[in-house]
């Protein structure tokens, strides 16, 4: 393959590049002709509902499952034949923690270092700094099953950094964490980005995507729906402001539906009025009785729901 010889500027060379990437399983198409480029030093996010093809795309990039079609290169190497060489330069944080329950915090890091061919002596200073990074220095001799969910996640992230990777891949890094733990993870990931690491994460938390990612790719059913910065996506797909009206009676909602200048979306007993000119509607709502409403700027969640629909995904 001629992928390594592309005439592009070095600084602008993508870390991961895919064209027409496809993955078929026996009964379904998980990834269906996907093109994207991930550039160094940036945080790139895959967002999409369950089953969108996010995790499958990551697994193909790491050489853990073969492609069914298209091309996919990581560090300029074709992914499917270069799994070990690619993974030597990547830190992978899996969806569910898979720390070794037979070992302590420190042993988890030391044993993992050995899988990268690092000697005990090479690993020792890295382990110290990673324990500090994960705020686990005083728990170093604790068994991993005695750690809280947030601590386990921090240890999993620290473990993924043991080989000093250029690219860190995180599959739903904060799923199942409480708000405090989630904010600590976000802060650590921001720190990694400032150190110049390229981050690639999947998430279905739009707040997380908006906060961390420079560029987003919205996926559904194996296809890319749109791609851009969080700001661009919001500007492209939704009005700048929304008024959420919550009401007991359908009658009040119908009356509102007549109000001009609004794009309406209904979800159960809640009505979303997307608009550029909220003043008129707010005046009406203030006079109405039995209605509660919330006026806020639109965000990525509005974009996401607009593009992928509001039906349940199971």
């Amino acid at each position, binding site marked *: 393959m001629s992928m390594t010889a592309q005439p592009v500027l070095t600084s602008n060379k993508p870390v991961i590049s895919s064209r027409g990437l496809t993955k078929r399983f026996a009964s379904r198409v998980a990834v269906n002709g996907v093109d994207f480029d991930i550039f160094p030093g940036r945080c790139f996010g895959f967002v999409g509902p369950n089953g969108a093809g996010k995790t499958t795309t990551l697994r193909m990039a790491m050489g853990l499952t*073969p492609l069914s079609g298209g091309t996919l290169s990581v560090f300029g190497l074709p992914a*499917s034949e270069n799994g070990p060489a690619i*993974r030597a330069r990547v830190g992978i944080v899996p969806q569910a923690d898979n720390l*070794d329950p037979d070992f302590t915090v420190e042993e988890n890091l030391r044993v993992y270092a050995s899988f990268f061919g690092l000697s005990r002596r090479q690993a020792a200073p890295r382990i110290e700094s990673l324990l500090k990074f994960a705020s686990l220095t005083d728990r170093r001799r604790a068994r991993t099953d005695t750690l809280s969910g947030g601590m386990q996640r921090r240890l999993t992230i620290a473990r993924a950094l043991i080989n000093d990777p250029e690219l860190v891949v995180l599959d739903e890094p904060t799923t199942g964490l409480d708000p405090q733990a989630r904010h600590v993870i976000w802060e650590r990931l921001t720190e990694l980005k400032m150190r110049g690491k390229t981050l690639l994460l999947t998430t279905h938390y739009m707040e997380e995507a908006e906060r961390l990612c420079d560029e987003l790719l919205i996926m559904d059913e194996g296809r890319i729906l749109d791609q851009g910065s969080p700001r661009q996506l919001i500007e492209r797909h939704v009005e700048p402001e929304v008024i959420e009206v919550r009401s007991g009676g359908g009658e009040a909602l119908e009356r509102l539906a007549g109000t001009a200048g609004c794009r309406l979306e209904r979800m159960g007993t809640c009505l979303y009025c997307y608009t550029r000119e909220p003043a008129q509607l707010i005046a009406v709502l203030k006079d109405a009785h039995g209605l509660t409403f919330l006026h806020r700027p639109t965000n990525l969640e509005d974009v996401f729901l607009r593009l992928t629909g509001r039906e349940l995904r199971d």
Partner: protein
Amino acid sequence: MNLWRIPTARAGALAVWRRNILVWRKLIVPAVLMNFGEPTLYLLGLGFGLGHFVGEMSGMSYLAFLASGIIASSAMTTSSFEGMYSVFTRMVPQKTYEAILATPLEVDDILAGEMLWCATKSVFSGIAILAVAAMLGVVQGWGALWVIPVVFMIGLCFAGPAMIMSALAYNYDFFNYYTVLIITPMFILCGVFYPIDTLPLAMQGFVQFLPLTHAVMLTRSLVVGADLPQPLLHIGVLMLYAVIGYYVAVVLVRRKLRV
């Protein structure tokens, strides 16, 4: 990424082997107790109890006959159970393989490391039995130490098929099939408790295909000093099982973990 390509185990296999040693060291007291306890019970109970009535078997004391066979069967069970229950635990519920596959290691390396570890555990059990047998005075001399590399080979031989079972299993109960249909019959039929030439003729031919028969021939000869006309044949059978078992296990685990 071809499922069937020839496996290439690299240095990473040793990291997997070291990981398992590290875990074993944390549980060393019950592990060593188990290594000594069970064979001692067999040798004292059956060797002396049954040996009292049997007297000599194949020109040696029954205790010597039994001890030299139990070394092989114990290597088989140690390696098989590690290759089934422990390997399955790491592969499926504990997700250790998923974690290791996020490093440069591949399934080829992981299973090579597991296999070395299964064989190492067999050696621990073999040394324990040899020590007990030596204390009971049925070992031929220092030459019996050659049984240790042979026990390692026996461990390799049984690790492969056991890992195949792990790749095929969907839960722990699945292993009962292998234990009841393969391990126990070999334990009973392959010459651990009596010489195979007392079996019906057709049966004698059949047990020649079972690896434990060859394992017992080797260990009996080395521990007690019995005649061994065709050592290379026996070694060859063990290695054949080891190589084929490893290859099939690698292919099946690749298939299981790549989705």
